[in-house]
């Protein structure tokens, strides 16, 4: 008995050493077979247990089993270590290499600005309305209190479409204000809409002009609407758009379809960065009673205001863009910046 027990410890130590020395899973398996396999050295030792006297068996068995458990645990540990080692790539990964990118496209900056404008108006009860870009003189001018011989028509150089001789040519709307007329003729007051969209002027393209550009128009008609409401709304929207430090000022101006009319200047960190305290940004005013009469609203009951501004201008100020033509070239180097 003493002979068996004496062999256990050295054999165990030898096995542990061999397991530890195995450099890969194959070597470890060979070591396992040579000790714990059916013909292994340790297995052979266990087989000798049977030859021991009955009273010695439990004590000897206990020693052997504990040694075997120790070996198996060591084997499992070593196997995990070697498996982990085998799973690693030959060379460590260079985590500074660029990854394999999936492209996410981007919205055009004018779309982004339009959406920002729409979002801020919607917070205060406005909905979005729309109208045709091909218009007629009535909706674009006459109904807006700008008859054919009115000097104000001079400042809006209009694209007329080709038309058969004798027919009144259609035109490309020069402002989104034409939608005011279409909406008011269609629905009874109150009205609370904004209208983003493309408009057209006969300007040759340069850094500040493009024959196509985009505007947003706001129209609010209700009982007892005042200039104060107009100021409050304009202030709210521009603070949303241009930041909470934005200040607004109104200056008297002239538009044929509003009375009184104002131009709106704003002032913020952005304007000061451009070296200006005030920057003209929009036009507005109280809807002219003649316009109400033209659409069949009673100006004695309803009052309202409208304002409009250029989307490109907002985007140019917001992002510091210096050439309007960039918006329509669709250069990816431009589009991917927003």
């Amino acid at each position, binding site marked *: 008995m003493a002979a068996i027990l004496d062999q256990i410890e050295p054999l165990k130590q030898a096995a542990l050493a061999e397991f530890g020395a195995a450099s890969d899973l194959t070597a470890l398996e060979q070591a396992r077979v040579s000790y714990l396999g059916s013909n292994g050295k340790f297995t052979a030792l266990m087989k000798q247990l049977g030859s021991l006297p009955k009273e010695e068996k439990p004590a000897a068995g206990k020693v052997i089993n504990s040694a075997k458990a120790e070996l198996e645990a060591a084997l499992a540990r070593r196997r995990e270590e070697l498996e982990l080692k085998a799973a690693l790539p030959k060379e460590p990964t260079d985590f500074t*290499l660029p990854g*394999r990118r999936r*492209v*996410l*496209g*981007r*919205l*055009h900056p004018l*779309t982004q600005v339009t959406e920002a404008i*729409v979002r801020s108006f919607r917070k205060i*009860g406005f909905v*979005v*309305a*729309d109208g045709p870009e091909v218009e007629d003189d009535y909706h674009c001018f006459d109904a807006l209190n700008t008859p054919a*011989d009115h*000097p*104000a028509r*001079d400042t809006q150089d209009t*694209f*007329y*479409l*080709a038309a058969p001789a004798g027919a009144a040519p259609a035109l*490309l709307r020069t402002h989104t204000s034409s939608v005011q007329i279409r909406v008011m003729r269609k629905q009874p007051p*109150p*009205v*609370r809409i904004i209208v983003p969209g*493309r408009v*057209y002027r*006969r300007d*040759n393209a340069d850094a500040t002009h493009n024959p*196509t550009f985009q505007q947003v128009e706001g129209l609010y008609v*209700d009982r*007892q609407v*005042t*200039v*104060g*409401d107009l*100021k*409050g*709304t*304009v202030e*709210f929207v521009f603070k949303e758009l241009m930041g909470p430090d934005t200040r*607004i*000022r*109104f200056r*008297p101006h*002239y538009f*044929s379809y509003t*009375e*009184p009319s104002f131009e709106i200047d704003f002032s913020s960190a952005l304007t000061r960065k451009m070296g200006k305290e005030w920057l003209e940004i929009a036009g507005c005013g109280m809807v002219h*009673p*003649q316009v109400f009469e033209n659409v069949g609203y009673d100006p004695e009951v309803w*009052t309202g205001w409208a304002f409009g501004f250029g989307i490109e201008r907002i985007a140019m100020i917001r992002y510091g863009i210096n050439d309007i033509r960039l*918006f*329509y070239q*669709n*250069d990816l*180097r431009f*589009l*991917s910046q927003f």
Partner: protein
Amino acid sequence: MKVTFNWLKEYVDFDWSPADLAERLTMLGLEVEGVEKVGGEFDGIVVAEVITREKHPNADKLSVCRVHDGTGERQIVCGADNFKPGDKVPLILPGKTLPAKPGEAPFTIKVGKIRGVESHGMMCSPKELGLAEDAQGLMILRPDARVGQPFAEYLGGAQSDVVYDLEITPNRPDLNSVIGIAREIAALTGNELKWPEVKLSETEPGAETWVRVRVEDGELCPRYNARVIRGVKIGPSPAWLAGALEKLGVRSINNVVDVTNYVMFEVGQPLHAFDYRLLSKSPGAACPTIVVRRAGAGERFMTLDGQERILAEGMLLIADETKAVALAGIMGGQNSEIQPDTTDVLIESACFKPQNIRATSKRLDLRTESSYRFERGSDIGICDWASRRAAQLILQTAGGSLAAGAVDACAAPIRPRQVTLRHAKVSELLGVELPPEAIENYLSRLELKIVGRKPRPVGAPAGPSEPVTFAIPTFRVDLKREVDLIEEVARLYGVDRIPATPPRGAIGANAYDAVHDELAEARRILTGLGLFEAQGQTLISASAAALVAAGSAVSLGKPLSSDMDTLRPSLLPGLLDALQHNISYKTYDVALFELGRVFQTQPASGPGAAPEIREMRRAAIALTGRRQPLFWSGEDREAKFDIFDLKGLVEEFCEQFGLRGLSYVRRAEPTALFLESAVIQLGRLQIGELGQLQPMLARKYDLRDAVLLAELDLDQVLVRRITTRSFKPLPAYPAIRRDVAMVVPETTTHEAILQVVKQAKPAHLESVELFDVFRGGNVPAGQKSMAYAFTYRSGERSLTDAEANASHQRLVEQFKQRLGAVIRE
């Protein structure tokens, strides 16, 4: 409109600095677009005389001049050609700086060689001096200018002044004059407007002995005032007069013409001076008669700019009994203008119908300071005063003696317009409470006079708040109704003082609101698919439009250029332009989409009806270059976009957006745009197309890789999309997959195979997927192998293999029978 600080001060007192004044005017509605200091700013600029002028030895368009600057001669190289030796010009000396324009860096003059010849200074144009917007050539000064005199002094004394450039809105013609602007300041300050005192000594017999006036059309000319001055001496204007005009960018001509211009700028009334001796009288008449008449069609008339104008009926002329002498309100005639030897002068001060002046000026493409004022509406009440003022200044600067009075033809008595105001409406519209006295005070400061109050209803309390009627001064042609008066109150009260009130009131409603969100959703999906949003020009060339819509494109009447003469009938030409632009800047991999409107004509609905223009919304995609962003390893990394990239994008977009059941029908022939393409259909409805660009076109647009284009009719898509979603319970039982690979003729489409599946309706079939198409190898030429995976599943129990096999086998038999498919084992 330009006006100077010092000139304004002659008519009204105010104690604002020049900067304060700019701010006040701006807030009153006269936006100050530019402010320039005159005086300090012309440091180093002197009056010089050109001695000689020779051609530059090395440049055709330059000349080499010797000029005298008052202290000595210097050599100057000059590019202008409107001057000759003897002319006096402004000269800036080396080391001195030109007045800076807003936003520009100041420009300092240096001694330098221009094309090899030294130049010691620069002779200046009015534009370089900031005195005019644009000007050709040098500023030629009056012959009496003293050589060496500082230019600022020449312009009107050494005293510094400030020139304001004001934006006058078209409704306020009364502000196109110094007195008009001073009147605004007077109203704002409450100070008195100081009219120049006009006292005339009339030493000649009455005007009616010298001229008669016959107005044939009193509607087009409601007033015509003629005054005669005899024995004037035409000559250069005195420095104060010429300087005043030159500060406004107007060239001095002679004393009489300068006076008419000066009075126009002073009070806003355009005047015209005729050489009296050139007005002919009819035989036997004692004096000439001014006839205000309409032109005959085709009548020819030489205006004083030397251009012969062909007139149309309805244009208004000033004539004598034998000939026309002026185009009314626009420009005088060459046949009657003031000459160096003119002695007797007739001053016209009239009022013309704005619409008529505007139509004539537009038709002849002839715009003048005079037409500018008349077409906006002149003050019928000022004609005689302006004429008297001109007479006073002519007597003062050109001598002569004045005929007594004037011949003043007035079609109807001048009656001021009346407008009634309800005080309560002011507060109602402005959102600020103003006492009735304050309202009336503001309006009276603007020279509106109360002419009556509505009688107070019986029993109502007395007070000034009954509606009050105002007489509108004749110079305020813009004040027509109550709301116009309210605006005046707002201006004088101060728009800044109106408090802003938080948004309130009705919630809006409009059918388009939801559509706006749908479009935003479409954009969101398309960007998620890796496409960048583009926005193209609406105006494109007719040739680009013809690629996609021959015959139905909408043309502009008067295009700016042939590049932009047609409304886009499709978004695809614009996307091609965008691809071309990117590739010209060496961005070769481009994937874009655009959502936008297109325009096409619809054939006329009936005989004689005009074709209708339709606006439609479209969504379009364009791809070229590499499919994936650059990566540093991998087999397929250089792969280029192909038609199935495009189709995959269209399919994914449609599925995400809620459009099911599309089919793709190949076009048998190439089109103008596409090499190979398919129509996208929803049932029988065509809702779009997709395909590959013609290689010849690709070359024209400098596109070297395949270009894939798709366009969808977004209006139809919006109508047809299904956005409702309902939950299906997750499958509770396992699925069984069976694959089949079959060899079929090349002409057998995927769609044909799916049709067989659909008609066979195999039991428990859940889905079918194509996973391989293979040609070559064992597959005979003209045939292809297509491999499909079929998934079978029951919702009630686990299927057995036998059940799945039975169902699948029946399907395979159908492939063999219906398609002649050979099943590969």
